[in-house]
């Protein structure tokens, strides 16, 4: 085996890192004040309860402290963040041709309309603070599937449904950035899949933040009714600026009795982004939530999707990969709460750290007293690709009943010389062997994604290995 040590290059972000002229129609002042919140509320034509909700959330935001247990967010100054940017486009349209040219070009470069034609049942595209395009295919609509922007739903026939679910799973009191979201949220999707409907093709929402120094605060609310099935895909990206951008979205998922929801995310924010996102699902009897999560972008991430298993026999799976490169501090993981008998959770994650990147796997499994006969299994593996990076695992387990089985395993290491040796004995070069091992390491997520997205992910991870003096 040669002495040369391969270098893993950074992720190729060129397809995401292009800037469009900031030709927005309207934006608030930088900072966060009651006046700005009221301005957003007026701009969104909120019902009264929502306006009050925003103001209450702002109070919570001012009351709550910044977290001191995760990556530093000192570089994020809310006084410099624009919380609402309305792009220069008509309010959400269903005809792709009505989307303004530069915005259309953005999403075409990201492959969104092509994906819709090829493999999706519906698409939502958000540009800065507003959805600019939303469409659901006839086949899905005919089955009664609702896929629309959340603001329309807030005022239309689903108003009561939105009001009874909005930020009930993630209340503004949850943490500082949930409160921030409650105050300034804008855009996002509402999905309702009726009882017994099995949607064969996924729905996708794509979030693009183009404005420099802005925040994006979209809200996603999905209700999958009894016995239904949905695969929802979320994608996000932004061009890189030399100032901080902020993403503090919120995802609330309600999985009904015997229903299944697969929620896939390929997160590729630019490396000036503070990604302080909150995702939470509650699962009824016999239901299942499947999280597929790829975290590749952001300067700092706090991301821990939570599954609350509240119905007998409810299940949760979390499959994730995190790739932290130069200048990135990605604190990711998940939370599992078992609150009913016969529930089960399964966690499988991979973390890769390189070129000074910091990757932290953080998780919790709580098995409450009433969750008899529950099972949980957590497996987290981390790969260090050099000695200037950092990789931590911080998994917590709180078991409050004797009638439970919990297993946990964690492993941190580097690429095994034995594995490289074996592959070389089968005819691969050392570089190819190492590249293959690194790609295979992240395959737990890739194999769970539809083919087109797995290919995208593999492109995203395009790890270029080359011999170098090591």
């Amino acid at each position: 085996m040669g002495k040369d040590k391969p270098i893993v290059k950074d992720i190729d972000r060129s397809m995401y890192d292009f800037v469009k002229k900031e030709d927005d129609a309207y934006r608030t002042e930088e900072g966060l004040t009651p006046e700005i919140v009221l301005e957003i509320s007026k701009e969104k034509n909120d019902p009264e309860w929502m306006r009050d909700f925003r103001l209450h959330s702002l109070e919570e935001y001012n009351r709550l402290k910044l977290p001191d247990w995760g990556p530093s967010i000192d570089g994020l100054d809310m006084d410099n963040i624009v919380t609402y940017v309305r792009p220069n486009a008509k309010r959400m349209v269903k005809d792709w041709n009505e989307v303004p040219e530069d915005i259309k070009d953005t999403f075409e470069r990201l492959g969104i309309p092509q994906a819709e034609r090829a493999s999706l049942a519906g698409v939502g595209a958000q540009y800065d603070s507003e959805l600019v395009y939303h469409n659901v295919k006839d086949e899905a609509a005919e089955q009664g599937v609702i896929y629309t922007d959340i603001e329309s739903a807030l005022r239309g026939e689903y108003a009561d449904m939105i009001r009874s679910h909005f930020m009930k799973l993630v209340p503004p009191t949850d943490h500082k950035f949930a409160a921030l979201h409650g105050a300034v949220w804008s855009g996002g999707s509402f999905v309702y899949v009726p009882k017994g409907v099995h949607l064969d093709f996924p729905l996708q929402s794509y979030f693009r933040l183009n404005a420099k120094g802005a925040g994006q605060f979209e809200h996603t609310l999905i209700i999958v009714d009894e016995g239904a099935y949905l695969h929802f895909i979320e994608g996000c990206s932004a061009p890189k600026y030399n100032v901080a951008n902020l993403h503090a979205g919120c995802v609330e998922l309600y999985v009904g009795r015997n229903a299944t929801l697969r929620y896939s995310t390929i997160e590729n924010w630019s490396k000036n982004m503070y990604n302080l996102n909150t995702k939470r699902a509650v699962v009824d009897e016999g239901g299942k939530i499947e999280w597929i999560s790829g975290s590749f972008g952001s300067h700092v991430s706090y991301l821990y999707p939570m599954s609350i298993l509240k119905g007998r026999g409810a299940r949760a799976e979390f499959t994730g990969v995190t790739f932290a490169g130069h200048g990135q501090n990605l604190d990711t993981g998940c939370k599992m709460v078992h609150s009913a008998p016969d529930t089960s959770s399964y966690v499988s994650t991979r973390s890769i750290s390189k070129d000074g990147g910091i990757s932290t796997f953080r998780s919790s499994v709580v098995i409450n007293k009433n969750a008899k006969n529950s099972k949980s299994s957590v497996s987290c593996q981390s790969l260090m690709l050099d000695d200037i990076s950092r990789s931590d695992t911080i998994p917590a387990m709180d078991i409050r009943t004797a009638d439970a089985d919990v297993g946990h395993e964690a492993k941190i290491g580097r690429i095994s010389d034995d594995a490289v040796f074996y592959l070389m004995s089968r005819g691969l070069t050392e570089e190819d062997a190492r590249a293959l091992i690194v790609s295979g390491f992240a395959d737990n997520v890739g194999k769970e994604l539809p083919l087109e997205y797995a290919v995208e992910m593999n492109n995203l991870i395009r790890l270029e290995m080359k011999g170098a003096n090591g």
Partner: protein
Amino acid sequence: MSEKEEIRLNRLPAITWYWLNMNESEITSEPCDGEAEVSVSVPDGVTESRVRLSENKEVEDLSTQPTGAGAAFSKIFDTAGTEARLYTVPAGLKADKPLKLQFAFADGKNSLDQVALDVQKNAELTLVMDYASDEAASGAAAVQTKFRLGENAVLRIVQITHVGSDFSFVNDMGGKTADNARVEVIQLNLEGQKVYQGYQIDLAGYKSSLKTDIAYRLKGTENLDMNYFANHTGRKTTCDINVSGVLRDTSSKVLRATIDLKKGAKGAVGNEKEDVLLMDEGVRNRTIPLILCTEEDVEGNHGATIGRLDESLMFYLASRGLNREEIYEMMAAARMEAVAAKIPDEETRADVEKYIGTVSED
């Protein structure tokens, strides 16, 4: 300590969500009544002296040696002006008998004791620390043990805790290893209403190693709060932390176990393993095993199994005529016995086995 004070201890080296209440613990420090009654048996060649660590130039480094309980807790000893029992094992001495320290904590008293060990180059020592009080004793005690190991030195520490049903006890430890030094820690928790224990061991020397075996059996409303921190800074250092226990009734435990593979610790390997048997409905088990890593050429592993006894094993044993209670008791005793069997001192081992009730009838 002259007044009551809330003190935080057993803090994780890297904290997590506060709502889990696992980052650290808090105790109320009572005014100190002095030291516990200690009966000491010192092997030939080992010297004993009383020193204030911060005032003795020769062992000054021990005064700043971090421990599992943490800096805020260590301050209690400084404030109280505690004199440590310093045991020096001269270079090359392989003590033929164990150093035995038997602590008898008095009912209703609050004691503070500090033990320091200077195990010099090529020396070997087995230290047995027995912590006991009357069964119904109340009060509080804290014993802090600090050590430094010279090159190739070996230190085996055995700590047995059986304190009263209304007693709060802190068993704190911190130490540092030189090249090729070896530390072996055995802790058995037999009784104790509220017990806090842990260590920070700095594996600084090349190829130095740490092996830890811990077993506990908790019942009633007993609570065991642990914080173990293996700090790898030396190359090719190794640690193995094995924790095994049984929870009965409404007892509870927290295990914080951290392997920190620091930059420069090339070739280091850290392993943690935990096995917890939950026997009754009211128990609560909390576990947070951390692996922190800033070095590429290392390996860190953790595995935990928490829960009931395996159903197929239950079925097999039941088919052999044992009832559920007998099976559980047998499994609990087996876990304790597995660790007790590793005690290097025969006399101590026999005492512990008798206590556990697992002495073979033949």
